[in-house]
Structures are given as C-alpha cells and as structure tokens.
C-alpha cells in the first residue's frame, strides 16, 4: 500500500453503503467527535437516502433502478456501482488518506459496493477499513451465503475487514427492548466503533498502535470481530477508569466478557485528555490484560488528545479466527501461529454416570480436569467393598 503514514490522518473518509450503512452514517454524523471526518452515504434506494438527511448523498444506479434499491440482488448492485454515476464517489474519495466503509452485508448494495470500493481504494493507493455487519441468523441461509461470499470478495482488496455478526446484539440487549431502539442502538455502536477505530489511527503519541497492527492481525484471515467501547468522564469520580472499563465490557457489540477470553487477538487503545496520568493508564491497561486469555495476542495503544480533555475513551477490538482454510492454501499455514483451542477447564466426558449428590446443582468445581465434587475414589476407579 502506498500510504504514507505521516499524513494518514489528513483526510479520513467514511462512507456508508446501503440501507444499514446509511443509518450508521446518520448516527455518526450526529456525533460531535466526528467533525474531522468527511462523511458520505451511498445507496441505490432513494427513500433511505432522503430519510437520512446526510449532506453528502450519492445515489448510485438511480438511472435504471429508479431509486428503488436493488432488492437484495448482488448482480443489480454490481451493475449500479459499475455505472458512471459512481464516479462521483470516486471523486469524493480521491483525496482521502484513509477510507472507512460501513455497510450491512447480505443485501445488494453493500455486498457489491464494498468490494467495488475496495478495488478502487487499492487502485488509488488509499488504505481501507471495512466495518460490516453480518446478517441475523433469522434472515436465512441464503442471505448468510451472500454475505459470506461478499466478505470473501472483499478480503483480497481491503486492508482491514471487521465483520460484526448482528446476532451479537441479542446477547447484550435485554429482550424487552423495543426493536426500533435496539437497532438504533446497534447503529450507534457501530458508528462509535468507526469513530474508535479512526481515533486509533489518528492520535498515537504514547504507545502506538496503528493501521499496520490492524493489518497484521486481521489481514486476509477469516475472523470474527467484536468491538467494545467505553467512555467515562473524569468528573464521574475517582474510579472513572473502572467505569469506562465496565461500560466497555457492557458494550452490546462486544458480546460479553467471555468473548474476550476466547479471542485470538485483541487491539486495545486508550485515549485520554492531556491530563491522563501514567497510573491511570497502567491501571486500566493492566485490568484489561486480566480479561484476555493466556493465548491472546494483545496489541495495546495509548494516546492523549486535546479533544478528550476530561474524558477517557477505551476501544477494544477482539478477533477470533475461524479455523477454516477458506481463502486459498497459502494462509492455512499461517493459522498455526495460533493454537486452535485455548486450554480449558473442561472435564473429561464421563463414560459412567456418576452422581454428585448434594453438589449436583452447584457451580462446577474443576481443578486439573477433575471434577472435585465427584467422590475421589470413584474418579480414581478404586473399588471398595460397600458391605451388605
């Protein structure tokens, strides 16, 4: 990539593709911290663009879809992006130093648009990050296949692909949340994630973690990512670092604390105001370390920035590789860097049903693969005379 890291932050462009992407961009544009980004949305659906009220709207393929969207048809999406109307988008990203694309995989516009934009960015020598959502499992197998095919197409050209499964929303949002609010919340989260990731790259003055770290961890390897963010204000009390961490762990897109334990890699950045002191930094970063498993590759960054005066902001991207040799043979050798399974406390599968007596309903008690609640002599297979 011909990107010069020195001016990577000069002009970062964020583009939302399709219906979901437009919604995310709308939320992003409402955030004050996004002022330095140039934001745009592109869709084949006229209604969704009009509703979003984003200043930079690019209707693509309106000439022949009549602004009705492409109805989940990837071929239609590809045709839309091949059309001259998309030169406007090329002009828009031409000057960028970094391209961030958000979209919901599985539909027509985003699935086709992402790979098309990735190719363009590659041609122009712009580093690109794709933050895409994978469809809900209830949306059916066909949609999932489309989305997987889309990501497969995207991988060779994009620098970083972060794919967030929508299903993760269930695990963290209470089921009585109104549907509209839940979706909005997920859009906000993804918008914040975009912000968090661009922040990682923008300000790096203490411990640097940058785009190449992302590339190293994510590039061309099929993986599942979860993003968590936590922000706390200094005025919230002395333990505001902990508050930020707690919020991070409660992030709906992180999928709970356990997802971090199972992660193969994690990228963690902490951004604070100029007043951030070393004790707070150490405290917070060490605390996260304890959450990750022993095999997790952890990349840590810390920054200070005037924009964050009085705040602390933690972004965490956890990555779990899927151990399928799916993108050509050469990468399969690479995956051996990471153990397929972290050693767990799983007990041996009992071949004989053994009663735990009064402990059968209590929390498990596994030490060195032995369930201590089962009588010792049964586990050791010692035969005893039970009398008559």
């Amino acid at each position: 990539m011909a990107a010069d890291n020195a001016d990577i932050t000069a002009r970062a462009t964020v583009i939302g593709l399709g219906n979901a992407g437009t919604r995310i961009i709308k939320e992003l544009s409402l955030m004050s911290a996004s002022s330095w980004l140039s934001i745009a949305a592109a869709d084949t659906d006229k209604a969704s663009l009009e509703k979003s009220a984003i200043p930079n709207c690019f209707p693509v393929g309106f000439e022949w879809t009549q602004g009705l969207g492409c109805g989940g048809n990837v071929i239609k999406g590809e045709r839309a992006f091949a059309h001259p109307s998309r030169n406007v988008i090329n002009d828009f990203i031409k000057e960028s130093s970094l391209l961030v694309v958000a979209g919901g995989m599985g539909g027509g516009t985003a699935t086709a648009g992402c790979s098309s934009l990735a190719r363009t960015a590659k041609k122009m020598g712009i580093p690109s990050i794709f933050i895409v959502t994978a469809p809900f499992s209830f949306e059916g197998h066909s949609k999932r296949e489309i989305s997987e095919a889309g990501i497969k197409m995207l991988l060779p050209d994009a620098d970083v692909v972060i794919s967030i499964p929508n299903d993760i929303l269930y695990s963290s949002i209470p089921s009585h949340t109104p549907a509209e609010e839940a979706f909005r919340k997920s859009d906000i989260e993804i918008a914040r994630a975009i912000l968090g990731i661009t922040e990682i790259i923008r300000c790096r003055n203490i411990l640097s973690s940058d785009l190449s770290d992302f590339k190293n961890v994510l590039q061309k390897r099929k993986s599942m990512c979860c993003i968590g963010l936590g922000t706390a204000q200094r005025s919230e009390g002395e333990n505001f670092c902990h508050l930020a961490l707690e919020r991070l762990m409660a992030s709906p897109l992180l999928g709970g604390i356990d997802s971090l334990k199972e992660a193969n890699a994690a990228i963690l950045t902490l951004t604070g105001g100029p007043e951030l002191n070393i004790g707070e930094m150490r405290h917070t970063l060490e605390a996260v370390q304890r959450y990750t498993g022993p095999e997790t590759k952890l990349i840590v960054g810390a920054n200070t920035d005037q924009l964050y005066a009085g705040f602390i902001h933690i972004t965490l991207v956890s990555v779990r590789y899927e151990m399928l040799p799916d993108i050509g043979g050469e990468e399969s050798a690479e995956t051996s860097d990471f153990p397929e399974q972290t050693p767990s406390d799983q007990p041996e599968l009992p071949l004989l049903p053994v009663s735990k007596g009064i402990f059968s309903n209590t929390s498990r008690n596994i030490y060195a693969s032995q369930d201590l609640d089962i009588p010792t002599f049964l586990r050791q297979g010692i035969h005893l005379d039970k009398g008559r």
Partner: protein
Amino acid sequence: MFKNRHIITAVEIGTSKICVLIGEGSPQGHLSVLAHGESAVESGAVCKGEIIEMDRVTRALDEAIEKAEYSADTEIDSNNLYIAITGSHIRSMRGSGHVIVTGESRKITPDHMVEALKNATMVGIPPECVILNSIDANFVIDGLRRIADPEGQIADKLEAFAHIIYGNRNCVENFLAPLRELGYDTSIPVFSTISAASGVLTDEELKNGVLLVDMGAGTTEYMLFHDSGAHASGVIPVGCDHIANDLSVGLDINNISLFRKMLVNNTIHSRKENGQAFIEIEGNIGTNRKIPAVTIEKIIDLRLRELFNLILSQLQSTRMLPFIDRGIVLTGGGALLPQVREMAGSVFEMPVRIGNPIELSGAVTNLKSPRYGMVFGLLKHGERDRQIRKSGPEMIKNIDRKLISASRETMRWLKNAIKF
C-alpha cells in the same frame, strides 16, 4: 452508648454454621469475648462457601445475632462489624511498589513504608473484582536485602511487596447482603484465612514460616506466612461436606445428615478403636446395612489426601514451600477429623498442629475448638483494624508489623490520611 466501649462484632456465614461473636476491646488493646451466638444452617442454604438460599441464611443470621446480643447484653456497633468472606472466586496476587528514599540521612521512615505499600497495592484487577484485603509480604532494600521491618535502615530504594486478595464483586456483595437486610450497612469484609491466622497462629509461627490450612464444611483455605507476611493463599472448594457426600454417594445411602453427624461425633473412629470391623447404618429401604469400617476410612482418606495434594501442588508453583519452618496448622471443623493430622503430615512431610483459638479470654468458654479459630480471629483482626483506623499511620509502627494492612477500609483510610 459506644462512646466509652469498643464493641466489635465478627460474623461468619459458614456452610455448616452461622456464628456471631461480640467482643470488647479495652483501651490497653486487650480483647475479651462477650458473647457467642450461633445458629445451624439448614442443609443446602450455603454450599461450598456460597450462599444458595438468601432468605434462609438471613433468618439464621438474624437468630444468631439476636442470641449474641442477648447474652452480651449490648447492641452490635455497626461501624465495627466484620464479616468473613470465602469462596472459590477468591484469588490472590502479588503487588510490588517502590519508593526512592530521600532526605539527608536516607533513613527509612514509616512514611516511606506506607508509600511503598501504597504503590504495591495499586494493582490492576479485573473490573468485576474488588480487593478484599492486602497484606504486606515483605520489604526489599536496594534490591538486595529482604527484610520484614526496614524502619531506620539507610537505603536508596525501598521496595514493598504486598499479597493482595481479591474476589468477585457480586460474590462478596452476596455475603454482605444478609447483613444489609438486617440493617447493618457498614460491615467490613475480611478474607477468612486472614482472620483465622489472627486467631490461631502465634507470633513466633508467623515469623518463622507456617502454612495455615482452614478446613471448613464447604471450602478449604490455605495461606502461607513467613517473616510476618503473607506469601501465598488460595481457596479450594472442597470441605467436610464433600466427605459426607462421598460417603453418601459411595455407599448408596441418601442420608447426608447422618454422615455429617457421624463425622462430627467421630463415630467411625471410635467404633473401630473398639474393635468393631463393621458399622451398621440404616439403608435406604429401612433395613440395616453392615458397612466395613475400612471402606469408610478409605473413602475419607482418599478425599483428604487428594485435597492436601491439591494444596501442595498449588504451593509448589509458588516455590515458597522451603519457607515453611514451623510446619502446618490445621484449623476449622475439618481439623477435628481423627485422621486429618496424620494425612496432612504424610502429604506435606511436615509437622502438623491443630489450631485452637489462642489468647482467648472473656466470658465465653466453649470456643476452645478449631471450629471457632476463624471467627475468633476475625474478632481479633477487627480489634486491630479498629485501632489502626483510630490512631492513624503511626499505629503501623506500634503493632509489631503483624499483618498490618488490614482491611480495604483501612487502606482507603490510610490513603486519604497521608498526603505525600
């Protein structure tokens, strides 16, 4: 009412019993036990040191407190209420901190010690955890000399190592909840083995190195002391209830309370002493069964041996075993089992002593049993903690540097009180 009297209360929510001790500290620092209230926990309300049925525990606790208040003829001072915490969620780690000794003479003062300790306790723990206690382990001067009390020494750099015990916040809160329900909001949690150490270990043992094993009904805790500091600790969620359960499951007799009773009353051992090779137990269908005493002993032995081996293997990884000079002190209800001493001795290859409460004084006399080592120690710990809170950092000097840092309340207080 509490202006002149120093009433301290210790509460233990154990798997087999809920115990409340009320004590009074004299201005000279002498502690006497005023009253003892106890109520048995119904089977299953507390399991492996974790509260399963909150309302039954709350009721039993209420009863125990009432009994204690009645016989002490005084009310509990809720500002000096200590509760022992245990459970498999408790972890420990070592924190280290250092200060550069400044000043013309480069002499180490208590202020240096407190600041080094303060730095040592500033460790990152997972956000869902809280620090329960931190105990100073030892100091190192100039990175070379290990020393328990560095005050007055000339040095450039003072390092402090602290043994920090932390547990899951929700699990700790669960222990405080029954007390809160009863209107005591300001109870102070203490890791149970720290209290047990105060109750059953002599200063001489603490100094020369000792391993304390507190075997309760639900859990077994251990802690290694050397040079008056703690160096390793852990909780293994295996206790006497496991032995009773082993017998019940192993012999196909679903009568756990019968086995509990047998263990408490030492039935098995005494029958065997009398030359009886079989023990008659009422079976499930009403008929009596003759169980060989050897079988029962074997089941108990295997469990105990496994438990001690587990502790041993955990300690081996800390490389602290050679520092145990005075052997092992066993306390808790499990120490009353007849074969436990022999078994611990053969696994650890060390002398073993049963830890009864020491320096026990006051109106209550029936506490001289390892069953009460921990709760009595909690009372002593509370008295010391109260004194530290009362008199400030200077106190650290005066209490013989014996397990000083006390509870987290005290540490918080120390941090606020001393401005560097």
